[in-house]
């Protein structure tokens, strides 16, 4: 099952891209672990939130093919 992952802030810099299509059969936590290894993300998952299709969601929420996934680093607006 393929999903689209979009990257923001330091994750985009580390990934070197705005987005990519990836395999995500094992859920969001496993997906972040795989991408962190591939792109050398240094933020541990515990410091992130995750959004699917533009809404915050739980790390164990189910995924569907074509979903848009965003891993959300600690925010610093304001």
């Amino acid at each position: 099952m393929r999903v689209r992952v979009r990257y923001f802030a330091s994750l985009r810099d580390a990934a070197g891209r705005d987005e990519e299509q990836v395999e995500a059969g094992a859920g969001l936590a496993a997906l972040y672990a795989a991408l962190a290894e591939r792109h050398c993300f240094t933020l541990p998952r515990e410091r992130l939130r995750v959004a699917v299709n533009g809404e915050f969601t739980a790390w164990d929420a189910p995924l569907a093919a074509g979903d848009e996934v965003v891993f959300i680093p600690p925010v610093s607006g304001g």
Partner: protein
Amino acid sequence: MFALSDQPIDAAALRTRLEHPTAGAVCVFEGVVRDHNEGRAVSALRYEAYAELALREGARLVDEARARWPLLAVACVHRTGDLALGDLAVWVGVAAAHRAAAFEACRFLIDETKVRVPIWKHEAYADGGAPSRWLHP
């Protein structure tokens, strides 16, 4: 309303959105780009937002504030893109009949914006040694 703006924030225009015949108290918070952060001289600053979710979460914040306090008008705008020193990064304005609600709701909105809305700050520094970075507090 909660909005993002890639253009300079027009505080005077936003203030007119708070006019209301029963408004006796208006509280405004402005976040301004400073020349220093954590002891380092800032030379350039950029904000990036995950816009779809930032707008949705921002609208939720405004709804929550309206549920907690008797507000007559609310406006909240956050900049994105490249900012200069002295530019407004965020403008939050609240009108209410009385000042307690105006102060408390304004404070709530900026506090929650800073921890919940997916917007990130990128700083570059004037002192050559320090590399630019995304702030992930």
